[in-house]
């Protein structure tokens, strides 16, 4: 995946009007998703989840349980898809790899000194290479937000390009940590930097900073992806992460993807949810649809 961009010019990023973006998001949320569409949407959303555990106290046991959940979201119900990936720290990649053996579920690793990214580039590259060598299919890196906010856009660009190179065959997701970028204009700039520097996916958040993913932020990133597609014909994936805990909200995100990028992006190859609680909420909704009664979390495994 060579890219020929060597730098980023801020002038290529259009301004963003926050109020209009919020109004557009309200329109997505006014869509009524019912019946078959709802079931199809819920299953699609489930299949797009990067089931995530990113805690200091993560254990091999916890990662194994998570992997089982990824492969068997709810065996009591037939016809349920598996999630897209399991997302862990680099030291847990090997465990996850092993636990997911035989499935098509990907292993994603957060790298580059996640979540702050405040280490020298060399350390970031080592972190990345380690995760790849351990068997990660996907690398979720963080950008240097401090440098970005200082206006050192090409520092950020070069870092991403270097990490991309270190990824080898692994897919690169670039986390913008939009909760620290302050404005939608900055979200757009960071998206353009990431895309031009070689990101396969752009991702909103680490989940460690509030706000994490929001619809306005995601819309601005989807628009950056669309503009790049218009310009080059190349598709970039999108991953909102953190803060998407309910089925209803996940469906609104799908509406947003559908009406912004169209159906080519409506699959786990091009759109993911970084989430931990979402899977069970979706399962409860699917169960409610089958049984006709509202569900309790007590009946769904919490790994």
């Amino acid at each position, binding site marked *: 995946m060579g890219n020929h961009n060597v730098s980023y010019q801020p002038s290529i990023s*259009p301004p963003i009007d926050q109020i209009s973006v919020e109004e*557009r998001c309200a329109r997505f949320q006014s869509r009524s998703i*019912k019946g078959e569409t709802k079931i199809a949407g819920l299953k699609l959303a489930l299949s797009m989840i990067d089931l995530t555990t990113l805690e200091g106290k993560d254990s091999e046991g916890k990662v194994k349980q998570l992997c089982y959940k990824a492969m068997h979201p709810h065996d009591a119900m037939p016809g349920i898809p598996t999630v897209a990936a399991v997302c862990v720290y680099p030291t847990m990649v090997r465990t996850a790899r092993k636990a997911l053996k035989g499935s098509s579920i990907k292993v994603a690793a957060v790298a580059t000194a996640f979540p702050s990214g405040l280490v020298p580039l060399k350390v970031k590259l080592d972190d990345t290479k380690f995760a790849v060598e351990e068997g990660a299919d996907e690398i979720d890196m963080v950008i240097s937000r401090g440098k970005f906010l200082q206006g050192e856009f090409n520092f950020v660009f070069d870092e991403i390009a270097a990490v991309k190179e270190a990824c080898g065959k692994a897919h690169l997701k670039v986390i913008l940590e939009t909760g620290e970028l302050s404005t939608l204009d900055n979200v757009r700039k960071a998206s353009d930097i990431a895309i031009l520097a070689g990101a396969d996916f752009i991702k909103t958040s680490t989940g460690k900073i509030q706000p994490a993913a929001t619809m306005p932020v995601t819309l601005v990133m989807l628009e950056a992806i669309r503009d790049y597609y*218009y310009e080059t014909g190349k598709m970039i994936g999108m991953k909102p992460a953190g803060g998407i805990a309910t089925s209803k909200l996940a469906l609104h995100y799908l509406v947003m993807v559908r009406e912004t990028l*169209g159906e080519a992006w409506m699959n786990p190859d091009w759109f993911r949810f970084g989430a931990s609680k979402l899977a069970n909420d979706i399962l409860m909704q699917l169960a409610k649809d089958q049984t006709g009664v509202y569900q309790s979390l007590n009946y769904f495994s919490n790994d």
Partner: protein
Amino acid sequence: MSKKQDKKHQQLSAEPSLDFSKALSYTPAPESSAHIRLKKQYDLFINGAWVKPSKGGYFDTINPATEQVLAKVAEATQEDVDKAVKAARAAYENVWSKMPARERAKYIYRIARLIQERAREFAVIESMDGGKPIRESRDIDVPLAANHFFYYAGWADKLEYAFPGKNPESIGVAGQIIPWNFPLLMAAWKIAPALAAGNTVVLKPAESTPLTALKLAEIIEESGLPAGVVNIVTGAGATGAAIVNHPDIDKIAFTGSTDVGKLIQKAIAGTGKKLTLELGGKAANIIFEDAALDQAVEGIVNGIFFNQGHVCCAGSRLFVQEGVADKVIRKLKDRMASLIVGDPMDKNTDIGAINSPEQLKKINEYLKIGVNEGGEVFQPNCSIPAKGYFCKPTLFLNTSQSHRVVQEEIFGPVLAVQTFRTVEEVIEKANNTPYGLSAGVWTDKGSKIFNMTTKLKAGVVWANTYNKFDPSSPFGGFRESGFGREGGLHGLLPYLKLR
């Protein structure tokens, strides 16, 4: 539109580059109409009571999405209008003008509250009768109508603060004639300031959309408003003429076409009646290179496809700066491809039914004219229902100022697109019209916004937004788009004499 033309359109249309056709296509989500109460037949609301029309005539009001008859509605004759005016005059002289202003306010507040309570019913009936998407009637028309009453209620006992150095006085009986595009909202725009200022009202809703005004009459009845303060008479042009020409009416307020507005202005010449007119428009919506383009595209869509383009202030002339024209048009086409045209009652419908067969015919004639003038047509490849009156959202690309689709108000989902190079050029073109109701400007540069907004000859200028309305915000036109304002402090003036 004929099949032959449809084919031609297909050839001229560039394929949208994003595909919205299949994945997650929304299952119908119809708003229930089970809870609404519609009578089979509506009489005239005169002097606080439901009165049969003197000649016994009734006409059908139909659902433009299904072509089914919703109810029969009384046709008011001159005799009926006379009755209504007498009731309004008596109520004015004996009750309303004598009532302390703050008591007047309480009645108006009460009407606002009752609309809020029955909001869903109003929204459903509005969409059934007029064809507008339920999302719009639910989220825009009905709440704005309730808010309008709420807003003006508060003015009733504060009028002297609105006009420094003057003593504002009510005028008397106001005759009000409203159009079919925002039936309840326009009734609110007319009645609320008139009542707040101390006048009484005879209002005629449009013949194709009388139901929500009649439901409003039910609410007015429920509110205990003194009999005769608001009278609602239904009918067509002849009923309107009877109001306009009635000798005991002191003020006429009309919203509708410029042609009819001119007839009214002429008809009341020399009678001493006060007049406000809110007429047609052909607004320029101007996109500069430095604009937030994706949001501008939303503004274009909202500007022309809101309410099927049945909007006097619709942004029906698009001007895109040369450097971004291709980009904007590509985005716009893709956005149009994601619009859902169809059942107004479906919560996901973006573009509902054209209000009447006559209006659809008029729009289709303009589509033919646009093609014959050499405009390049784009319509998305969306499906439209077989029954009912529907029109796909349409672009005419590469038009020029001399094209009729650029000059004339189409009042449908049809956008004429031109490009421009310089600021001077676009101001010149934007103002090159007899209308002056509204305009839109999209740029990220503050000083350019104010340069544009001060130079555009229009009563409402939306900068980096479009088709926004608020009870506190004055609305109305320059030039042939009419005179007088509705909304805000300025909206009081047409209903007052300043001594």
